[in-house]
């Protein structure tokens, strides 16, 4: 039995098919989840994919956070189920307070789309174990509201506990404090990041590399070992 990994589709989600594909390429069983259903179909882990859920009309991720599926995801995440939030998914995780801080409009006010270099700062989370600490990877980045902010106390705490999971290299694309591209919760099961590993899992598309595949092979290994 291989691991079942769910990908949630909200109205306005754009990257669910890419995330399902990445899960399949990593060797796990992809399971589509619908935002109106509380039922997680007995998945072992959940990916919140990128896009503009509910149009981001109030704040990015703010409305989705109250959808029925999130009630269960929040519950399960608190008891240890691995959850990965990519881009809009990261925004939803901060709005749900599963991760600290908040995501705001890019400091230059432009939508940005580029290949982004990142450094893996924490290779011990459920979603990063297949990377080496300090490894540099390149994955696509595309967002409007990618500026990570938190107060100094929270930022210091994240740094001290090794919970800055990814940092932007060469260029900070959105004004995120301390070049933070992604963070993890204290338990290491919930990870959020702005760039898109699910778009870098096949040589033919995205960056032309497969640097993003490690997220999905990491979680598969963790779940099979568990």
């Amino acid at each position: 039995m291989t691991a079942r990994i769910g990908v949630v589709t909200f109205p306005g989600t754009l990257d669910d098919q890419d995330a399902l594909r990445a899960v399949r390429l990593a060797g796990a069983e992809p399971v589509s989840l619908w935002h109106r259903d509380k039922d997680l179909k007995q998945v072992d882990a959940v990916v919140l994919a990128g896009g503009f859920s509910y149009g981001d009309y109030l704040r990015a991720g703010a409305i989705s956070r109250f959808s029925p599926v999130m009630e269960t995801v929040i519950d399960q995440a608190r008891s240890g189920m691995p959850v990965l939030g990519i881009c809009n998914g990261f925004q939803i995780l901060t709005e749900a307070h599963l991760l600290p801080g908040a995501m705001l409009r890019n400091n230059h006010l432009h939508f940005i789309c580029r290949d982004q270099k990142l450094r893996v700062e924490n290779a011990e989370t459920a979603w990063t174990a297949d990377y080496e600490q300090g490894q540099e990877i390149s994955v696509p980045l595309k967002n409007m509201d990618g500026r990570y902010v938190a107060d100094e106390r929270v930022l210091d705490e994240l740094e001290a506990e090794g919970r800055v999971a990814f940092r932007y290299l060469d260029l900070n694309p959105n004004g995120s404090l301390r070049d933070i591209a992604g963070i993890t919760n204290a338990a290491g099961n919930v990870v959020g990041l702005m760039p898109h590993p699910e778009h870098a899992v096949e040589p033919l598309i995205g960056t032309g590399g497969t640097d993003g595949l490690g997220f999905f092979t990491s979680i598969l290994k963790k779940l099979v070992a568990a």
Partner: protein
Amino acid sequence: MARVVVDVMLKPEILDPQGQAVQRALPRLGFEGIADVRQGKRFELEVDGPVDEAALARIHEMAETFLANTVIEDFVVKVKS
């Protein structure tokens, strides 16, 4: 029907590039003398029934959990007559 206004503003220490963009545009349009602009959100709520203490408490809760993200934003609730 009573109206309640919820004003939401980014906390003072949070960078507001939208407000800054507006502020930078002002002199180009001939509006001088504005040292700073910060942009917020205003929600106007039409409330069924009286706006008593209980109703206001509910609206306060709504603002705190949903209309504002208190990690980055402050809010003020005002009753309009």
